């Protein structure tokens, strides 16, 4: 039965954990708070260690809390992160997204810094600053960095936050053998700027009910044995893991089962973990995809996608992994375009008639249960002090 205006506005007769108010996707005030309360205080993935392989290699990162960072490998091999900002008068230090720099030289007035964040040169320092300001006061802003869980470089702007392992709360334990038995390497990177809210991307990664969207997944996964036995496991701090399935890639005409795998992974196995507040490990047979979401505005999101294989891959093995990755992912893959199309469609309708979004499926935590999204928004509400179902109320 169609609903009239009052009925359309009515809150669903469901627990408040089972729906959200789409205001959380459109409000600039809420994004401002998310940056301060969540992104500035939680661990996020900046890049992979293979992107800064050698001493003095650097890689820039646009942090979701709204800070520009760079990651650099020191002469001691340690990976550190800093604001990509000159302490003098705020110029961007590193303009290239990646490179190798013995000295980090600000092009503007030639302040220079070393790979550990110390200021090493102030041109004509004493003449101008006398003993009022020196190199000791002009160090870079260091950002806490931990490398692990597949060699990902995690950063946290909060100096007082709990350690990464504690934050992850065991969410990646089931994947650890695949991630940490031997070094991984990034073979694909691309960024999709999508007119949608970052949480809508994470929602898509956190529910499998939308497998109906994907012809590929319907054939190779949904119609295959084991699909409806996949279960969600939730973890502290808003993370969720989806149970495994062995995918039948050959059910898509012209597709091949994956010849390659990861350590400890059964051939064609699919494992997936969603990490609060906007990262996903998606390990599918021969390649690992890592998503990291960066809000630009409430209705615009930059999503960084990385594809990874094993560092020791031969060129032939690597080509196979790349082929498998691109068949469903990458800017021309079968599935990724469809996922992005769906969140683009949600994004287009934001503030244009949407009312409550349902996260209400309960199926004993199996694959079409929406416990993954509920886990995320439970955590979100705790950090924000606002229920996602009624974000104007303060908890």
């Amino acid at each position, binding site marked *: 039965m169609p609903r009239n205006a009052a009925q359309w506005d009515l809150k669903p007769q469901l627990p408040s954990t089972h729906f959200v108010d789409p205001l959380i996707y459109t409000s600039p005030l809420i994004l401002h708070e998310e940056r301060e309360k969540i992104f500035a205080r939680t661990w996020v993935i900046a890049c992979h260690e293979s992107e800064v392989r050698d001493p003095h290699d650097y890689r820039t990162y646009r942090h979701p809390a709204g800070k520009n960072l760079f990651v650099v490998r020191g002469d001691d091999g340690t990976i550190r992160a800093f604001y990509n900002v000159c302490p003098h008068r705020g110029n961007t230090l590193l303009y290239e997204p990646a490179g190798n720099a013995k000295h980090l030289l600000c092009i503007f007035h030639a302040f220079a810094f070393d790979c550990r964040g110390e200021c090493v040169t102030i041109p004509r320092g004493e003449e101008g600053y006398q003993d009022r300001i020196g190199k000791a006061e002009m160090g870079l802003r260091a950002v806490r960095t931990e490398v692990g869980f597949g060699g990902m470089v995690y950063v946290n702007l909060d100096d007082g936050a709990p350690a990464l392992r504690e934050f992850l709360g065991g969410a990646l334990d089931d994947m650890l053998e695949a991630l940490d038995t031997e070094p991984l390497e990034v073979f694909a990177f691309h960024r999709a700027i999508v007119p949608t809210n970052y949480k809508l991307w994470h929602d898509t990664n956190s529910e499998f009910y939308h497998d109906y969207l994907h012809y590929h997944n319907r054939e190779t996964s949904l119609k295959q044995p084991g699909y409806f036995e996949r279960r969600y496991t939730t973890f502290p701090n808003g993370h969720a893991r989806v149970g495994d399935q062995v995918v039948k890639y050959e059910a898509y005409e012209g597709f091949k089962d994956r010849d390659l795998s990861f350590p400890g992974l059964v051939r064609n196995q699919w494992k997936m973990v969603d990490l609060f507040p906007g990262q996903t490990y998606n390990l599918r047979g021969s390649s690992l995809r890592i998503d990291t979401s960066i809000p630009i505005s409430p209705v615009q999101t930059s999503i960084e996608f990385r594809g990874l294989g094993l560092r020791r891959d031969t060129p032939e093995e690597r080509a196979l992994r790349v082929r498998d990755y691109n068949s469903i992912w990458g800017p021309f893959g079968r599935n*990724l375009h469809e996922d992005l199309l769906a969140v683009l469609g949600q994004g287009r309708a934001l503030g244009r008639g949407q009312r409550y979004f349902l996260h209400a499926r309960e199926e004993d935590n199996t694959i079409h249960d929406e416990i993954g999204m509920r886990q995320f928004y439970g955590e979100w509400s705790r950090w924000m002090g606002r229920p996602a179902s009624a974000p104007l109320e303060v908890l």
Partner: protein
Amino acid sequence: MLDVSSLETLNSDHREIARLVYDTVLLLDSKDFSGWLHRCTDDFAYAVRSWSPELRAQITWLEHDRAGIENLVRHLPRHHTEPVLLTRHATVYRIEPDAERSEATAITALTIYQTQDDGGETSLFAVGRYYDRIIRTDDGWRLREREVELDTRSLGIGTQYPL
């Protein structure tokens, strides 16, 4: 030294090769993939790549033989794709036939625009180049290899169509 008649052959080769490249653009624009593949050899190879300053490496985004491309376009109706029109603007910059004039390479500048079905707004989708290898067959010049080298790496939600 080229005599007059071989110069004429060379000129007509150039014309025919340029025409082949432009034909492929027109056929792709109109989504006539079988017409496009008709201009390609049986051992056609297609790839989309781009240099990534982030990884300081070349990334391959799509790589198919003829059967792979045929499979890709055959399955398009089963997938959800964004309702947009892709329009390619191409200029053949350089054609270099080999000494026997049985084979040639061509470099083509490429701009791809995207027009929304809803409202008709046009935006730039990507810029790059075609690097083609073209061979002479009994049926005339045919595309043996196409590498689409993209400068643009921020491709919105991407596309399911060959470029």
